[in-house]
């Protein structure tokens, strides 16, 4: 099920044109790419943030759809939840309650206490399978890879039932090839952002990356394969902006306009936005058992986030390393409103940055916020202090 092209709009466009249509797609609450896929007879698997082994779904010929909230009012979803919750869980449910997006399977993860509840909430509202993929929360156990391999096999069986077809190891290897290419292209995009940030602003890189959660990965590979050379040849001048790392976008996503506001005074040279798409840092091995390699890569060749506790990855040290590796001068440490892991980590991050003498700017955001003036003025003041210090 890959014959349909879900996102043809970028073809034949300039770099600016490609970025513009990616932005439009991200802000389109009718989810046209998912609709086109379904109209062609395809099935869709929604998976909540942060990381999901999309290869297993892709290998079954279904579309993995990254559930990460959306630009919608939670009119129906509000009545399903309590008051003190992040926006992303509400708008994610709203997408399906309002039938903007229709699914055949929904999977969430124990990334936080709100997200883990989603399988139950979703399952009470829809007849299709809704479940939790129990990614290991003790990555330091020597048995974690074996356990996760078993958990992925369980997921494979669910996916096979939903797809109505088997998912062979060869199917998985073909998918791994496509996803390895995608991860390599995203690494290239981030290298560009880091090395020549004036050629691709934070919001532009984000738009090019984030559409990957809405379209088949083959299409995303084609898009990035076209965009990267065009970005490199853009005729743009370097400006006197501060190089920063943006931290806090691992789950709920800030609005594009917020990223654009930041880009007006900063070069965002690295970030954790949609980190799940870039969670695995290297190519997954193609030899032998693909589920084992996928499980191994999740645990042993991966990034970090506030929702994974790994003794080998103290998060404040990982952030300092990210700042150093990107050659950043400062950090923007954000958290989504009501995001417990993000808000807790913010305390540690700021204490660690202070101790290391790294300037930082702290804020909270919400995916559907519409006013950025105050934040932009505060950020400009922060930047001016750095530039003229």
């Amino acid at each position, binding site marked *: 099920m890959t014959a349909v092209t879900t996102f043809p709009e970028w073809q034949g466009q300039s770099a600016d044109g490609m970025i513009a249509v990616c932005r439009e797609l991200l802000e389109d609450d009718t989810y046209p790419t998912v609709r086109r896929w379904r109209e062609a007879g395809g099935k869709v698997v929604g998976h909540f943030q942060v990381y999901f082994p999309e290869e297993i779904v892709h290998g079954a010929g279904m579309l993995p759809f990254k559930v990460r909230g959306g630009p919608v009012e939670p009119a129906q979803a509000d009545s*399903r939840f309590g008051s003190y919750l992040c926006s992303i869980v509400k708008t994610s449910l709203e997408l399906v309650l309002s039938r903007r997006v229709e699914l055949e399977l929904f999977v969430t993860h124990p990334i936080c206490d709100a997200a*883990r*509840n989603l399988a139950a909430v979703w*399952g*009470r509202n829809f007849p299709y399978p809704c479940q939790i993929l129990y990614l290991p929360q003790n990555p330091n*156990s020597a048995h974690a890879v074996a*356990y996760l391999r078993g958990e992925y096999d369980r997921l494979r069986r669910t996916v096979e039932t939903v797809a109505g077809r088997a998912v062979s190891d060869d199917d998985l290897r073909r998918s791994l090839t496509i996803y390895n290419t995608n991860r390599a292209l995203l690494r290239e995009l981030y290298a560009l952002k880091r090395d020549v940030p004036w050629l691709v602003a934070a919001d532009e890189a984000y738009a090019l990356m984030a559409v990957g959660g809405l379209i088949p990965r083959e299409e995303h590979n084609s898009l990035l394969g076209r965009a990267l050379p065009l970005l490199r040849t853009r005729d743009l001048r370097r400006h006197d902006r501060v190089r920063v790392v943006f931290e806090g976008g691992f789950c709920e996503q800030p609005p594009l306009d917020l990223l654009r506001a930041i880009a007006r005074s900063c070069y965002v040279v690295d970030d954790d936005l949609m980190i799940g798409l870039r969670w695995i840092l290297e190519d997954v091995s193609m030899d032998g058992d693909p589920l084992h390699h996928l499980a191994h890569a999740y645990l042993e060749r991966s990034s970090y986030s*506030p929702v994974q506790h790994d003794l080998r990855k103290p998060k404040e040290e990982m952030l300092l390393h990210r700042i150093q590796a990107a050659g950043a001068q400062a950090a923007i440490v954000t958290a989504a409103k009501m995001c417990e892991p993000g*808000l807790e980590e913010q*305390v540690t991050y700021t204490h660690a940055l202070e101790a290391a003498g790294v300037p930082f700017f702290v804020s909270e955001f919400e995916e559907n916020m519409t006013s950025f003036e105050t934040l932009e003025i505060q950020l400009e003041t922060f930047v001016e202090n750095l530039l003229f210090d």
Partner: protein
Amino acid sequence: MPTTADDTIVGRGNADGARLFREWFAGLTAAAEAGRGSAYVFVMGSLAELLRTFDFPIVFPEINSLQTAVRRVAHEYLNEAEDHGYSPDICGYVKADVATQLRGGELPMGRIPKPAIAVYTNACNTYIKWAEIWERMYKVPVVTIDIPGTRAAGTQTWPGNPDFENDRAYVLAQLRELIPTLERVSGVRFDIDRLREAMGHANTMNTMWGRVLALNAARPSVFNALSDGTIYLGVANGFRGAPEGARYFTELVEELEYKSAHGIGTLTDERYRLLFIGVPCYPIFRRFTEMFTELGGTFVGSTYLRFASGGANLGFTYDLARPLESLAEGLLIGVRDAMDNMFFQTDILIQMLDDLGADGLVYHPIKSCRTVSTGLADSRRALLAARDVPSLFMESDMMDRRVVSEAQLKNRIDAFFEGLASRRAQAAIRGD
């Protein structure tokens, strides 16, 4: 049948629970003053039966934090943690503990020792983030015992199923990896016979805990799940795997059976039997319960007594012939059930309604706890679609008095009871 035909045993459980609690805190204070390191654990999957065999004083930070609210000083602790950088929007238990640590362990009930190790499950994700604070503060080992829960409603697997065996092998491996760390930190060699002994006490407690909950099917109910139940719960956690805990629950069952046999209830006129779903409102703990009891309502059951006991309600019995394997299995099944009582509770509540003969449901989601509260509104909607039963839904908090409005709660509760009375009157007219 009761072995003691004497009303003096009535109230013994509450009195002994309070005494045990005082003794426990006196022991912790003595350990703190002696500079001993302790094991920090949480209520859902504490592994106290294992940790006791290494002679650790056991500290339950959740219980410490809720005590600050019951004793009406939580706001001082919350403010201190917020001054340290923690958001008003995170778990109040965490913040009260941060302030406790910043105060050198000082609490209204005594002083707690510093951690030498923290061992916790993933039953609540905040446990993991919480332990990271101690990891950074004290540079001590923090060990997550990852317990895979139910994947979707009604899909629990059991021994022999390959998916269950995958989970069990993972849990068992983690326990085996934990033991050398416990030996190193405590300086005590692992003794499997001591573990057997502690697991034997836990077996008694598990069996009796299940019996205690079932005994509240009596009319009138023999304990209030919110007030009396919280005392029992404190003992169930603090003395898990200890002989005092096993004895307490054996005697508690004796008391409650006596009350049941003699028709002794918690209220002189029990008019409405209610289920409580959520976490208690500790900042006005006594008053909160009174707002129901004054109108003839008593809580005959709660999800709290199930999930906050780590699934002890199942009455799981460890196989002492293969202690470690059985500990892994019991931990997996118990903690999974605790999580089911928070996430996949619809069928559980329907069963409780039937078993306990409840007349209504009180949902109490709280700002502090997304684990318990996120899905309650939807859970209520699903339950009301399945059963015609009155329910009350009111939000406040377990710690933060800034979001607890007693007057608003009282208005809602009064209206709920008016509805209960009206419903009963209409049923009488219909001759139901």
